[in-house]
Structure formats: structure tokens, C-alpha cells
């Protein structure tokens, strides 16, 4: 901490990596907005440096013994000291790498996807803002800094979701995302305030140490944990704040890939892992989180079974996988949760980017339509997407298989078997809806000739141009697909890397039960099989079993009416009652009161001026009467 920043390569790398995207954001917003190419170059260059720095840090500190911390004064007020700095440990290094790599890939991919968009510069500015906020958040040393950048991440998400702001639905979705996560963030903020006031310190390492139990009562810890979890629920779209995420798909597809699948929504889970020891001090809270995770996972899976929108499927699956991660963490298997976070980041980004290619080519989000127009003609995305779906379903040997198994193992270690059954059901449903989508595109009921030239393009590029962009978009897919394939094999090194630190917290993460393995894979395969029966085989009706039951389908498609509830709540309680009531109060009671006073004054003046009526006789009468009375009073 005493060494100056340029002498310490670690600090230098962390600073460069985390802060360069911000510089790029400012540069683009202030200077290069009219020059899209230059803006993109700046942004991609900045994020490339970030990737290099992140990989450098990861490599340099692969055998990290103690977390490294650098802080400097950001703000001092009275006894409150707010530092700004970096804290590097295994978890934050891993997250930093994930964020940097995925940001990089998405930015490269966007060069193709967003080409010719009028808001190209703006897009890259927001991407840089996001990268800065997310990376600084990942390596935050205190919960306050974490919160600050957490909010900034939310801001970037708001801006990117509402990127096509001319579309009402897009701006609406951005607003919804911001406000809904804000609700969670308020709980988060209250939670860290409670910790700050009772524990006196927000340093993450201190919060994770055993000191907490000494200074805070168990009930207080539970309360704080639940409040802070509110932030997780908001950001990671857990029940009951889950409905913003499907809407967030209004943003450009790379944004969905980056923020709403791989990185930002994982921030919630990351925070869970970040202060995992703190959370795990409250068994009550952990059980609650387990329940929330499971409910989220199952709800989202059911929603995914009936939607026709390709991005929506992945959005729901994201929610359900996030719920699954929360379950894993809440079950106490720290490594399993983080590992799934890592693998999920890879394959979900892959899935979204693949869908992006389809959407870009066919200008539709409807999977039936894509299939009908010959979606399987796009070879690379199709193969990559199938790989991703397999990973999502937990089929060996893809990365998802390993991480899911790890979580299942954690769930199996719990006393109450209901969690495990819930998890298994979720796995089955996941496999079913993933392959429903794959089969629908692979084996459409009526195949036309593939003709992506006709429909492709946003009306801006010719075929040749389009082909070039296609490859810009394809490369990230291939890289991600490779990652998906091989990441599972790195389970053991990663586990050593991560759990070396939190050794104590890891009780049963590795304890695989053999039967569980078979059951899980069997369920996943049967999910795939069911999907094949209904959608894949020749002459299949392509109507799912859920879709045959009209009321259930409606329920699922309407997202269990959660949104309706919020809408009604907003319309009737917030707007209808509070807003309206207060406005009326303002207009009528307060303003009316004051105006009333004013009017009374004016009226009083009028009344008095009535005395000044020009009726001389009355005036005189009063005068003499008063004179008489005064005289009588004084003389007697």
C-alpha cells in the first residue's frame, strides 16, 4: 500500500484494466461522438487492454495466498471514511477475467452486429461505461464501493436496454429494469447501512471474518443478510423481482448477451459469493434464499416452455439458471455456485450471440419463423447454439454438465430432499425447453430454401459487406464455443484456485454421489427426448404438452401474472392512491389553504371596504355613536 502505483505491476494492471474503459467512455461522449469508427476503436482498444490486464493479474496471482488490497481516500466525512481501491483475491480475479473477456468478445461481435446503426458511438460509450463499472465493482474492497458501482452497472444497463429509445417498449423496458432493480438496491443499501452502523466497517474481508458474529446479534445478521439479498434479487432477477429481465431483451442482442445473461445479472450471484461467509452466518436467511432460488428457477422454466421468442427463451433460462446458482450458493456449496456462474457466463453469452446472428439475418425473433425460413442454413451459429443448449441442459461433456453436477451435489447434501427434487425438476425442464428451440429451428415443419441474402441486413449493407460482418460476428462464437467445450475440464484447477481461500466453507461441494450423476443426466436426456418427440421427429405436431393445456399455457405465457400484479400495484397504489392523493392534497389542501388565506385576506379587505361604502350617514352614525360611547366611558 505504501509503494507508489507505477512501481507495482499488480496495481498498475488493476488500475489500467478497471479505469481505461471509463476514459474511453468520457472520450467518446465528449469528443468522438460524431465519428463512429474512431469511437469503436477507442472502446475496443480500452477493453482489450482490460483483458490483457485481467489475464495478467490472473496469471500472476494464480497461487495467491492472501488477498491483495489497495485503497486510497475517496471521501472523509466526520468519522466516515470511504476508500476507493482494489481488492484482489481469487473470486474477484476470476470475475474480473470473465467480465473483461466477455466484454471484449461482445464488443468485437458488436462491430458486426451494430454496424451502420445511427447510435454506434453512443453504443460503444455505454459499453465502455458498463465495462468500467462492472470491473471496478468486481474488485471493490468495500461494500460501499461495491454498491456504488453496482448502481452504475444498473445505469449502464438502463441506457443499453433503452438503446433503441424510439421504440416505446424499449424505453419502457429500460425504465422497468432500472426501477425494479432499484427496489432491490434500496434494500441492499439499507442492509449495508445497517451493517455499517452496527459493525462500523464495510470492508468485505472484515465482513467475511468471524468478527461479525461477535459484534452483531444473529437476528441482526439475518435481517442484514435478507436486506442485502434484496439487491441480489433485483440484479439477478430472482423472485419476486424477476420480470424485468425478459423485457430487457428489447436491447440490442449483444447487450442481452453481455449484460443480461453473462455478466450484469450475474453480479447478484457474484455479490452472494463475495460476502458468502457473511450470508452463511445466518441459517434462516440461507434457507429463505434457497426457497427463493428454487421458486425462481421453476417459475422461469415454466415461462420458457411456452414462449415463441428466441431471446425470451434464453432470458427465462438465464433467470432459471441464476436461481439455480443462488440455490447452489445457499446450499452452502460456494465453489459450485461460482463455477456455474463461470460456465454459464460462457455458454449463455454463446447462446445469445448465436441468436443474435439469426435475428440479424432474419429480422425476426420468432423461432418458428426462423426455422421456416431455413435457419439451419447458418452453419456456424447453428452448431454453436446446439453446443450451448447442450451445455445449458447439463449434458456431458459440456461445461454446464460439470457445474450443474456440482450444484446438485450440494443440494443432495441438504437434509430436506425437496431442494434436490426441485433442482432435478429444473434440470429436466431446462433440457426440454432448450431443445424445443433447437429442434424447432433444425426441423421446421415446412422447409423453404435457405435464402439469407434476401432477408438479411438492416437495409444498409450489400451481401459482400454482410459476409464480412458475418465473420466478425462468427469469431466470438467460435471462441465461446471452445470455452464451453473445455471449461468443464478445468473444474479441479479452478476449485483449487478458488477454494484454497475459503477452504472452511466448502463442506460437501465435491462429494458426488454416483446415483445422482446418472439421475441428473438421465433427466436431462429425457427432457431432450421429450422435446424430440414433440418437436424433432418427422411428422411431429410441434405443439408442446403444455401448449395443449390452454389455461396453463396462458398462465405461463403471462408470466404467472406477476407483471400484471406490478402493473396494477403501480397504477392503483402508486399512481392512483399516493401520487394522486398527494397531488390533490398539494393542489387543494396546501395550495388551497394558502390561497384560502389569501382569499380571506382579500375578502376581509372587501368586507372592510364595504364599511367605506360612501354611505355618509352610516359613517357619521358610527362616528357619533363611538363618540358618545367613548365619552360615556371616560366620564363615568
Amino acid at each position: 500500500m505504501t509503494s507508489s502505483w507505477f512501481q507495482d505491476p499488480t496495481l498498475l494492471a488493476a488500475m489500467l484494466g478497471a479505469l481505461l474503459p471509463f476514459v474511453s467512455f468520457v472520450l467518446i461522449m465528449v469528443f468522438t461522438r460524431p465519428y463512429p469508427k474512431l469511437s469503436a476503436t477507442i472502446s475496443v482498444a480500452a477493453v482489450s487492454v482490460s483483458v490483457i490486464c485481467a489475464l495478467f493479474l490472473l496469471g500472476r496471482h494464480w497461487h495467491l495466498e492472501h488477498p491483495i488490497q489497495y485503497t486510497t481516500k475517496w471521501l472523509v466525512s466526520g468519522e466516515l471514511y470511504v476508500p476507493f481501491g482494489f481488492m484482489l483475491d481469487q473470486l474477484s480475479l476470476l470475475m474480473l477475467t470473465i467480465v473483461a473477456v466477455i466484454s471484449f468478445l461482445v464488443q468485437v461481435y458488436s462491430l458486426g452486429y451494430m454496424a451502420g446503426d445511427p447510435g454506434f458511438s453512443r453504443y460503444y460509450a455505454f459499453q465502455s461505461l458498463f465495462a468500467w463499472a462492472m470491473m471496478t465493482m468486481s474488485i471493490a474492497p468495500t461494500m460501499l464501493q461495491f454498491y456504488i458501482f453496482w448502481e452504475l452497472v444498473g445505469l449502464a444497463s438502463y441506457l443499453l436496454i433503452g438503446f433503441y429509445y424510439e421504440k416505446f417498449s424499449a424505453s419502457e423496458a429500460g425504465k422497468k429494469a432500472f426501477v425494479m432493480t432499484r427496489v432491490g438496491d434500496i434494500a441492499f443499501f439499507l442492509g449495508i447501512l445497517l451493517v455499517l452502523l452496527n459493525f462500523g466497517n464495510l470492508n468485505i474481508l472484515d465482513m467475511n471474518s468471524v468478527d461479525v458474529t461477535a459484534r452483531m446479534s444473529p437476528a441482526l445478521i439475518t435481517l442484514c443478510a435478507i436486506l442485502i439479498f434484496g439487491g441480489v434479487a433485483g440484479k439477478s432477477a430472482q423472485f419476486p423481482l424477476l420480470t424485468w429481465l425478459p423485457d430487457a431483451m428489447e436491447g440490442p442482442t449483444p447487450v442481452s448477451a453481455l449484460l443480461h445473461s453473462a455478466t450484469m445479472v450475474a453480479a447478484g450471484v457474484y455479490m452472494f459469493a463475495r460476502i458468502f461467509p457473511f450470508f452463511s452466518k445466518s441459517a434462516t436467511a440461507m434457507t429463505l434464499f434457497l426457497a427463493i432460488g428454487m421458486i425462481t428457477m421453476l417459475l422461469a422454466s415454466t415461462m420458457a416452455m411456452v414462449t415463441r421468442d428466441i431471446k425470451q427463451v434464453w432470458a427465462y433460462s438465464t433467470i432459471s439458471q441464476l436461481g439455480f446458482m443462488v440455490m447452489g450458493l445457499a446450499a452452502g456449496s460456494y465453489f459450485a455456485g461460482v463455477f456455474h456462474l463461470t460456465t454459464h457466463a460462457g455458454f449463455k453469452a454463446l447462446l445469445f450471440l448465436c441468436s443474435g446472428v439469426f435475428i440479424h439475418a432474419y429480422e425476426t425473433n420468432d423461432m418458428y419463423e426462423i426455422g421456416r425460413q431455413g435457419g439451419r442454413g447458418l452453419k456456424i451459429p447453428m452448431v454453436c447454439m446446439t453446443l450451448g443448449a447442450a451445455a445449458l441442459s447439463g449434458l456431458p461433456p459440456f461445461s454446464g454438465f460439470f457445474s450443474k453436477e456440482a450444484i446438485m451435489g450440494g443440494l443432495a447434501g441438504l437434509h430436506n430432499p425437496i431442494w434436490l427434487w426441485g433442482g432435478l425438476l429444473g434440470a429436466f425442464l431446462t433440457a426440454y425447453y432448450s431443445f424445443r428451440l433447437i429442434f424447432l429451428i433444425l426441423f421446421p415443419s415446412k422447409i423453404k430454401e435457405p435464402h439469407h441474402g434476401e432477408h438479411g441486413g438492416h437495409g444498409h449493407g450489400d451481401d459482400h459487406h454482410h459476409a464480412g460482418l458475418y465473420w466478425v460476428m462468427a469469431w466470438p462464437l467460435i471462441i465461446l464455443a471452445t470455452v464451453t467445450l473445455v471449461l468443464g475440464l478445468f473444474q479441479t484447477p479452478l476449485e483449487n484456485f478458488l477454494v484454497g481461500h475459503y477452504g472452511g466453507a466448502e463442506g460437501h461441494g465435491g462429494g458426488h454421489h454416483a446415483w445422482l450423476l446418472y439421475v441428473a443426466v438421465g433427466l436431462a436426456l429425457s427432457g431432450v427426448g421429450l422435446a424430440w418427440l414433440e418437436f424433432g421427429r418427422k411428422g411431429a405436431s410441434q405443439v408442446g404438452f403444455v401448449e395443449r393445456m390452454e389455461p396453463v399455457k396462458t398462465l405461463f405465457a403471462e408470466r404467472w401474472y406477476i407483471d400484471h400484479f406490478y402493473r396494477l400495484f403501480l397504477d392503483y397504489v402508486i399512481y392512483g392512491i399516493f401520487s394522486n392523493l398527494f397531488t390533490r392534497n398539494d393542489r387543494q389542501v396546501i395550495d388551497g389553504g394558502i390561497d384560502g388565506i389569501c382569499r380571506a385576506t382579500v375578502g376581509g379587505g372587501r368586507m372592510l371596504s364595504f364599511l367605506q361604502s360612501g354611505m355618509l350617514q352610516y359613517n357619521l352614525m358610527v362616528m357619533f355613536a363611538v363618540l358618545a360611547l367613548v365619552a360615556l366611558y371616560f366620564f363615568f
Partner: protein
Amino acid sequence: MNSLTTYLFLAALLFSLGIFGVFQRRSLIGMLIAIELMLNGASINFMAFNRFLAPDPIVGQIYTLFIMGIAAAEAAIALSIIVAVFRRLGSINIERAQELRG
């Protein structure tokens, strides 16, 4: 007949009648007449004090003379005002003359 208070009471009565007249008449001329009554009440007072109390019995008479002069001037002006008001308002009803109303 020879006591001061008799005259004073008489003066007070005249004065009060004058006040009453001023208040209750609606016609400006009626009010003018009532004012003359009041002035006479005052004159009687002067004369009575002059007769019974004053060291120099000329002064009260002079005051009374002055009152008469003032009354004459007042009557002249009042009448002209009444005429003017009548021209303007078409009435000498005092209750119509409300242009000073607030």
C-alpha cells in the same frame, strides 16, 4: 329660566335632534336643515355660557355672530353642492351618492 342647565339641556336637545335629522334624512336639503339645528344648539350653548359664566359677556356674542357667518357660508356652499349633485345624479338622495365607495 335662570339656571344654566336649562339652557344647556335645551341646546343638547336641539343638537341631538339635529343629529337625528342628519342621520335619518335621505334628502340632502333635509340634512342641511338638520345641520342648521345643530349649529343653533351650539349657539345657544355659547350664549348661555356667556350669560352665566363668562368673565366678559361680549365674547360669547361675538362667537355666536361668527357662527352665524359660518353658517351662512356653509349654507351657500351646501346648496350649490346640492344643486351640483342633483345635476349629476338626478336626485338628492344621499344614498345614491356613493362614489367614494371602496
